[in-house]
């Protein structure tokens, strides 16, 4: 596309793409390992903890996608002019994070091809995972149509597909929360909390990624951020303060019922999360990097600068990655039959991802960034909002 030629030469671009290629190679090695040796031999998931880091990374990606879609829709669907500048980029990254998330999920499934067949010819409508596939499939179609419409300037179709995508995102994502929330056997997850929490955390995730793409898009091109984007960053900073505040509220109310009265299994899980094997992840990554430090940065007018909002977004994104990991693993740490688990201490089962699992996660993250960076070169993502 001709627009690619007008992009100024970006400093460090080769290094950036080189690093991403290295990361993707790590992922490719992991994928080959799985194909040769099988899941059982290269993943650290077990009978007791069948869902590991690949599931939590899938959740991270689709949460990001939902959040990006919701935030981007504020301009194109809900008419907030200020947000229109992020429409194309936001929807593109929403699509890419969704596709990469699907890829990560496929690596966790033992038979992804079988899934494609039997999900259609033998659907189980009482399964939240079946609905997850169907709703995210529909959501992906909406994203493709909306992105195409935004690129072509079909405003009417962009509006309707954006509106459909907005509701599809909320439905699909709350249903993802229900994948966990409908499991009566898992006390830490069970209940209506999860679908609601997933939507709220998606907003924080989407806002964080939005400011990152705005900031690094200008930084990488070596161009000064125009006032309209600076103003957008300040607004996003305020919004992020609200989202993180609500997220903190949700974290606090996840902990209190887990401790109060020491409810069986829920108490042990909550303790594992805040004082046990996941405590460092919780206090340092989730609470410190993910919520408190960014909240202090964006809530304070003096630190809510363009750079400050970007740093807050970066820290939140890192923290939210660990938030997903802790949520998925913590829910499985209490054994269904504690006496039966060898090596379990205090009835808790331990999990740490294998090199292959970590490699695939790094590969997926790099693939997503690579595809986005490539798209920045190929597509005109400024659209009608070029400065």
């Amino acid at each position, binding site marked *: 596309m001709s627009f690619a030629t007008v992009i100024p030469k970006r400093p460090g671009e080769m290094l950036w793409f080189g690093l991403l290629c290295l990361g993707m190679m790590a992922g490719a090695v992991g994928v080959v390992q799985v194909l040769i040796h099988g899941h059982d031999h290269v993943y650290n998931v077990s*009978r007791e903890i069948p869902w590991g880091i690949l599931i939590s990374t899938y959740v991270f990606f689709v949460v990001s996608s939902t959040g990006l879609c919701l935030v981007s829709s504020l301009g194109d669907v809900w008419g907030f002019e200020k947000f229109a500048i992020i429409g194309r980029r936001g929807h593109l990254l929403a699509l890419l994070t969704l596709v990469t998330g699907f890829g990560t999920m496929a690596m966790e*499934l033992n038979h992804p091809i079988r899934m494609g067949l039997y*999900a259609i010819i033998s659907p189980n409508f*009482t399964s939240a995972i079946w609905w997850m596939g169907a709703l995210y499939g529909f959501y992906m179609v909406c994203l493709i149509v909306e992105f195409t419409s935004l690129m072509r300037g079909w405003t009417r179709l962009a509006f309707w597909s954006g509106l459909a995508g907005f509701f599809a995102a909320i439905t699909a994502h709350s249903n993802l929360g229900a*994948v966990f929330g409908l*499991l009566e056997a898992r006390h830490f997850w069970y209940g209506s909390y999860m679908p609601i929490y997933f939507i709220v955390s998606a907003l924080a995730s989407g806002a964080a990624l939005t400011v990152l793409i705005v900031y690094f898009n200008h930084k990488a091109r070596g161009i000064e951020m125009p006032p309209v984007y600076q103003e957008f960053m300040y607004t996003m900073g305020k919004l992020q303060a609200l989202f993180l505040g609500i997220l903190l509220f949700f974290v606090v109310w996840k902990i209190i019922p887990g401790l109060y009265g020491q409810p069986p299994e829920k108490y042990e899980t909550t303790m594992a999360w805040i004082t046990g094997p996941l405590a460092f992840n919780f206090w340092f990554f989730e609470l410190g990097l993910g919520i408190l430090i960014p909240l202090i940065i964006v809530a304070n007018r003096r630190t809510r600068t363009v750079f400050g909002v970007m740093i807050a977004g970066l820290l939140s994104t890192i923290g939210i990655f660990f938030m997903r990991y802790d949520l998925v693993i913590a829910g499985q740490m209490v054994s269904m039959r504690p006496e039966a688990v060898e090596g379990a201490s205090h009835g808790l089962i331990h999990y740490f991802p294998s090199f292959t699992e970590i490699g695939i996660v790094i590969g997926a993250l790099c693939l997503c960034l690579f595809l986005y960076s490539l798209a920045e070169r190929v597509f005109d993502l400024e659209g009608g909002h070029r400065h």
Partner: protein
Amino acid sequence: MSNKRYAMVLDTRKCIDCKACTVACKAENHVPLGRENYRNWVMEEALRGRYPNLGQEFTPGQCMHCANTPCKRVCPTKATGVNADGIVTVENKKCIGCKYCMTACPYNARYYNEEIGAVDKCTFCEHRILTGREPACVETCPTRVRVFGDLNDPNSEVSLLLAKHPHRVMKPEMGTKPYLFYLI
């Protein structure tokens, strides 16, 4: 012919923890080697009392063939089903390996079998009972902890045992309505 409702009644006071049931099951059902691969198990309950007055019980377990079946409910491709006789089954070719059923089962009765490429579990040795034989674990148990039969038949041994003795099920608070009954 009316359907059966298969069930198992266990008298844990007779269990000596020999694990013959686990071995018989593994051999009968070609369960792969490996610590995590098993269809049934014997759980060691906590020691009671103080030396020299000690007591301990062993509780065998397996898929509870629940009437309210969480694994069937969550399976996205209907790989898990319940047959007309109440046996919870897995259709291997439909299993996508999402392991949702494993997270949904409150008894940890399922494992992923790499050799058959599907989640595996106890089937009450369906292939044996179709030919009039008992499940392998029942047949092999030296102290006759397990009794297997049809609850729809009021004169079956399982029906009579449940009528005569008080009994319990595992994790009744889960509402799964298990069909493994433990005599008290």
